[in-house]
């Protein structure tokens, strides 16, 4: 089901079947171009499939934005080892709730995309790693997979093509870190979700130490439209270096929060005002996070002329990330926001790398003290320095993910930290209470 009204400003490519009766069923999928892309891909060479994905300018939708076609081309097809397709459905970046909808409303589109990836790299087995909290999606995927097997879209000799593929859902059990590709692979092997050192990258040595294509749910779901309508058509929807649409999750202080499929390059202001219905209660925007809590925050002034795409956000020293947009109005306490974000990373740090394990915990303690009114003036620089010392010093990006928003909040909202000094209770929280009292 859908949890918010669609917007007329959406460009519905991946979500085009959402809202159809029984949209999760094979019958609905087949009646609406379902598996046509896979049938077309069967007649293409692996090189042609990968080329089409490259032409589409599809970039990874999990957060890092790595070009998908290039990732696929790194898999050594000639390797004697079996190859695997792994779907990252561990969606847990704060602010992000989109992959859930893709699996819930159109699970066969995901299977279609996985099959095409299988053809491209000569893989015959795939796993969908679904976060444990999404139990209902395990049921939905199991049902869709069973239906696909029963009708010859999975299993041996798919549709008489001679191509075999087996697909299995796999549940996680609560760990943000397992959304990181190498930790996910460890978890898939029945271990603690601790990152692996790279290289080798998963394309060469991934699941079970064999070549593996590992992409986000949304990335795989973009593949059927790309193959069906051509990479160029998909590329044309976006901006020069990033094709297609992005499922964008509007969260926080907007009138119409929800998940919307928008063309890459969609203007941020229009997204907030028209898609999101503006800031609630007629308030002003204070801070904006484009793609999940790992991204540096932007101020309202920095959003002038900004568009929702990788380059526009990189240009502003932040990231498009996962598309989890977090919108904070003028009454938000940025120290409290920084603290909540750090509490999360301190909880989720797997403990493998010391700068991350100690850094997140130390920062959590300082920010807690600060927000409670026990902060010292020297703490403000200490927070920034500590965070900067975590950057680039860990196996996986969790350390950076904790540091980057923190550094940006200290730099851009230093006055809010100063307002908390001298044992004052949080001035922002206080103001909110007075208004609502």
């Amino acid at each position, binding site marked *: 089901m859908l949890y918010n009204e669609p917007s007329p400003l959406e460009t519905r490519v991946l979500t085009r079947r959402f809202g159809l009766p029984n949209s999760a069923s094979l019958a609905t999928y087949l009646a609406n171009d379902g598996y046509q892309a896979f049938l077309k891909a069967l007649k293409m060479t692996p090189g042609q499939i990968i080329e089409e994905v490259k032409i589409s300018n599809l970039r990874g939708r999990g957060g890092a934005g790595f070009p998908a076609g290039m990732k696929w081309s790194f898999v050594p097809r000639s390797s004697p080892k079996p190859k695997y397709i792994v779907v990252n459905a561990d969606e847990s970046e704060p602010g992000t709730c989109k992959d859930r909808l893709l699996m819930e409303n159109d699970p066969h589109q995901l299977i279609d995309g996985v099959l095409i990836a299988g053809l491209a790299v000569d893989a015959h087995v795939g*796993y969908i790693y679904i*976060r444990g*909290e999404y139990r209902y999606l395990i049921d939905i995927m199991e049902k869709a997979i069973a239906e696909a097997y029963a009708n010859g879209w999975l299993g041996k000799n798919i549709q008489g093509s001679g191509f075999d593929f087996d697909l299995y859902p796999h549940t*996680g059990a609560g760990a943000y870190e397992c959304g990181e590709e190498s930790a996910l692979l460890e978890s898939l*092997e029945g271990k603690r979700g601790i990152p692996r050192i790279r290289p080798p990258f998963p394309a060469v040595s991934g699941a079970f130490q064999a070549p593996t294509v590992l992409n986000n749910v949304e990335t795989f779901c973009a593949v059927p439209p790309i193959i069906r309508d051509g990479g160029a058509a998909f590329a044309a929807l976006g901006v020069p270096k990033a094709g297609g649409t992005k499922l964008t999750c509007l969260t*926080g202080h907007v009138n119409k929060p929800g998940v919307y499929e928008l063309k890459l390059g969609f203007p941020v202001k229009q997204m907030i005002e028209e898609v999101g219905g503006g800031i609630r209660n007629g308030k002003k925007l204070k801070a904006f996070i484009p793609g999940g809590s790992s991204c540096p925050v932007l101020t309202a002034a920095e959003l002038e002329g900004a568009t929702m795409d990788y380059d526009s956000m990189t240009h502003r020293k932040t990231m498009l990330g996962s598309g989890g947009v*977090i919108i904070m109005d003028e009454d938000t306490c940025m120290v409290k926001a920084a603290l909540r*974000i750090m509490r999360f990373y301190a909880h989720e740090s797997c403990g493998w790398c010391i700068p991350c394990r100690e850094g997140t915990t130390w920062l959590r303690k300082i920010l807690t003290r600060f927000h409670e009114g026990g902060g010292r003036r020297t703490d403000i620089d200490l927070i920034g320095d500590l965070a900067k010392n975590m950057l680039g010093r860990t196996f996986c990006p969790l350390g950076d993910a904790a540091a980057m928003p923190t550094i940006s909040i200290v730099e851009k909202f230093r006055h809010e930290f100063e307002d908390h000094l001298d044992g004052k209770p949080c001035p922002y929280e206080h103001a909110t209470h007075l208004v609502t009292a």
Partner: protein
Amino acid sequence: MTFSPQLEARFEKLLKSYPPGRERSAMIPMLLYAQDEVGSVNDAVVDEVARRVGVTPLQVNEVLTYYSMLHRKPLGKYHVQICTNISCQLMDGDKLWEHACKRLGIGHKEVTADGQISLEEVECIGACSWAPAIQVNYDFHHFVTPEKLDQLLDSLRKKQ
């Protein structure tokens, strides 16, 4: 130790889902599914899963302590998980959490005296656009207000 026929069938399927010799991959799903049936990952579950995937109980313990959804002690019949992460906090998820603690008289990872309801302050559960969000066992509830939460807790109590 034996489980329900449905769970046994699920385990059988799981153990065949991974390459030969890689049965250990089934460990985490087995622990979570067993916990759903048994109520916790107790010593018997640890031993049984270890035996079935071919590792030592110590190796199972080492893994299960990593995952926040796996727990060694039973929680309430209804496990109420309230997200207070950034998107939910902005929509007063933190106040919802305080309200729930006060109303039930229990805190983080605690169980009511009758064993019916437990509480947990959780990290992002992937319902950010419909915040504040909670999960009761595996069921999502979106746009939860203190009033809605009270009604929900009352209905859970009545279900006893």
